[in-house]
């Protein structure tokens, strides 16, 4: 760590991980409610637990992205952060607002929450992922503006690297698209159309820029490969992401009102969307093969390879599985969607945040070459337990989804099973998903445990790697 102010990333990472734990606990509550329908009812109905689960996910990923930005932008720009104080203030504002919102979900009836936060004045609540009271949404926008100001002032006074430019472009896009969360017309078809400007254009648009930039940064650091090569890859990846992903939004316009040409546009362009994710796999493995050093932080390298592979599987393969209109006609809004949502979010965004944490946390804790070997072994156990559990969660949900389509969607009206009857038929898969979820939680516990092991890696563990000519 070259600049003292990079250290403000630490509270962001720690708070992100605490929220991650909360997200998983509520995931298990949901998983159990799927099979024991009245579990915790009426204290915590399913919709409440689900809001907590998904909103915690989004908020902790945002904390992770901000932490990553505070850590890497000053180092790339070769200057101190413009205002560490502002970063601290915004940390507390966001943490308190986020916590209050989650507590509001849990302890106040949603209609009452809408009432006391004066949703009537500017109705934005009650839409999937955008359940936050309007006042919280405004708070998020304000935090984003302050954050971007701080980052831009830092980047502008220092060295301008491609990693910084791409990361900041992604963050500006993230903040700009957030404004669509305030647009909630009374015409449902319009509401839905622009809802996707936040949801799809985040995860299959600007967030890919953020992911690509963080991955590129970590690869530069742990492989020592020439930045020119890495930056070229980064540009190609994000070019493919936007070229495919923007019109690819059309894969959500099939059945919510827009005209038929979206069936073609959405299918064709979103079918190309796996490409940038595949290139990230090639990118990560290529750079690691060509590495000019063997960084002693092996765990960070594992996360970097893992995120590329899992993002490709979750977003690329599982996304492609149901993205063509004739397939999506049957799978739309089924457990297949849930299967894909889980592996894609985990592989791409959870794992990229855990990658930068794995790289940066030891350094901020005064262990420049990484954690001790024991801690790294434990961390890698956490990696494998969580990742394999997520693979099983995805497989079980896919099984449930295929059966659901088979029983409920494919037969004619009259022959098809009802939704609720279908759910009873596939409950075995939900039980297995719940078990896999418990393994996920145990993996998370192991991962957390690795933070409490003392000691650090030493530079002598670094052996020179295979230097290549054309780097």
């Amino acid at each position, binding site marked *: 760590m070259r600049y003292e102010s990079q250290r403000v990333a630490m509270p962001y990472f720690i708070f992100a991980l605490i929220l991650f734990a909360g997200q998983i606990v509520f995931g298990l509550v949901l998983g159990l409610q799927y099979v024991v329908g009245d579990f915790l009812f009426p204290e915590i109905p*399913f919709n409440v637990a689900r809001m907590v689960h998904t909103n915690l996910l989004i908020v902790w990923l945002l904390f992770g992205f901000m932490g990553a930005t505070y850590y890497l932008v000053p180092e790339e720009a070769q200057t101190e952060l413009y205002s560490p104080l502002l970063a601290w203030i915004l940390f507390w504002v966001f943490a308190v607002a986020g916590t209050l919102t989650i507590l509001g979900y849990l302890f106040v009836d949603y209609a009452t929450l809408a009432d006391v936060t004066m949703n009537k004045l500017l109705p934005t*609540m*009650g839409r999937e992922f955008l359940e936050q009271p309007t006042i919280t949404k405004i708070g998020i926008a304000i935090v984003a503006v302050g954050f971007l100001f701080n980052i831009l002032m830092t980047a502008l006074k220092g060295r301008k690297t491609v990693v910084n430019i791409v990361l900041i472009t992604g963050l500006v896009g993230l903040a700009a698209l957030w404004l669509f969360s305030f647009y909630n017309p009374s015409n449902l078809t319009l509401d839905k*159309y622009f809802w996707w400007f936040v949801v799809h254009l985040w995860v299959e648009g600007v967030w890919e820029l953020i992911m690509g930039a963080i991955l590129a940064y970590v690869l530069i650091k742990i492989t020592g490969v020439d930045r020119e090569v890495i930056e070229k890859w980064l540009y*190609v990846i994000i070019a493919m992401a*936007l070229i495919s992903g923007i*019109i690819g939004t059309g894969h959500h316009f099939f059945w919510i*009102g827009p005209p038929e040409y979206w069936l073609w546009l959405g299918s064709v362009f979103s079918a190309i969307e796996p490409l940038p994710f595949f290139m990230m796999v090639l990118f990560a493995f290529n750079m690691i093969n060509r590495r000019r050093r063997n960084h002693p932080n092996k765990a960070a390298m594992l996360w970097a390879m893992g995120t590329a592979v899992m993002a490709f599987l979750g977003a690329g393969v599982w996304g492609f599985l149901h993205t063509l209109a004739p397939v999506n006609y049957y799978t739309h809004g089924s457990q297949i969607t849930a299967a894909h949502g889980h592996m894609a979010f985990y592989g791409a965004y959870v794992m990229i945040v855990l990658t930068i944490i794995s790289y940066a946390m030891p350094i901020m804790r005064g262990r420049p070459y990484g954690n001790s070997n024991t801690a790294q072994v434990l961390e890698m156990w956490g990696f494998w337990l969580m990742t394999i559990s997520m693979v099983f969660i995805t497989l079980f949900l896919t099984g449930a989804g295929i059966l659901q389509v088979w029983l409920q969607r494919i037969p*004619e009206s009259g022959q098809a099973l009802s939704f609720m009857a279908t759910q009873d038929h596939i409950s075995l898969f939900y039980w297995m998903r719940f078990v896999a979820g418990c393994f996920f939680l145990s993996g998370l516990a192991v991962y957390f445990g690795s933070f409490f092991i003392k000691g650090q890696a030493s530079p002598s563990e670094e052996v020179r790697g295979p230097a290549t000519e054309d780097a």
Partner: protein
Amino acid sequence: MAERFTKSMARNIYLGGSAFFVLLFLALTFDTQSRAMPERDNRDQITEQVVRGKHVWEENNCIGCHTLMGEGAYFAPELANVFDRRGAGDSAVFKSFMNAWMNAMPTNVPGRRQMPQFNLTDQEIEDLAEFLEWTSKIDDNNWPPNIEG
């Protein structure tokens, strides 16, 4: 990647490609919203009641359990076609179904998935019914495949 393919070429593809597709997307959005949608979403039939019904839908977070046109949560049945499923396409039948249903919740059947009691007024339930009826009539390329949603 080959040496001939330089970083600045990659950057130009990124800048040119994304600018082009952003503009194309905006043009398509304009066409969709200004030309196509008015004919497909029956916007002339969005009454005061439909608007209020949408607010009731939102302020009780129905989307947290149900899908609506296939979007939302997958815990409870699709509701964009519930008007056809439970009202047989008849407004009066559907309204009385909705009234009975909302007031009968929760079922309290042990182990069964439970829908909360939202304590809605008769007026709110009627608004909701109007909203769901309007929703069922949007031209959505014939989704869902059958009545079960």
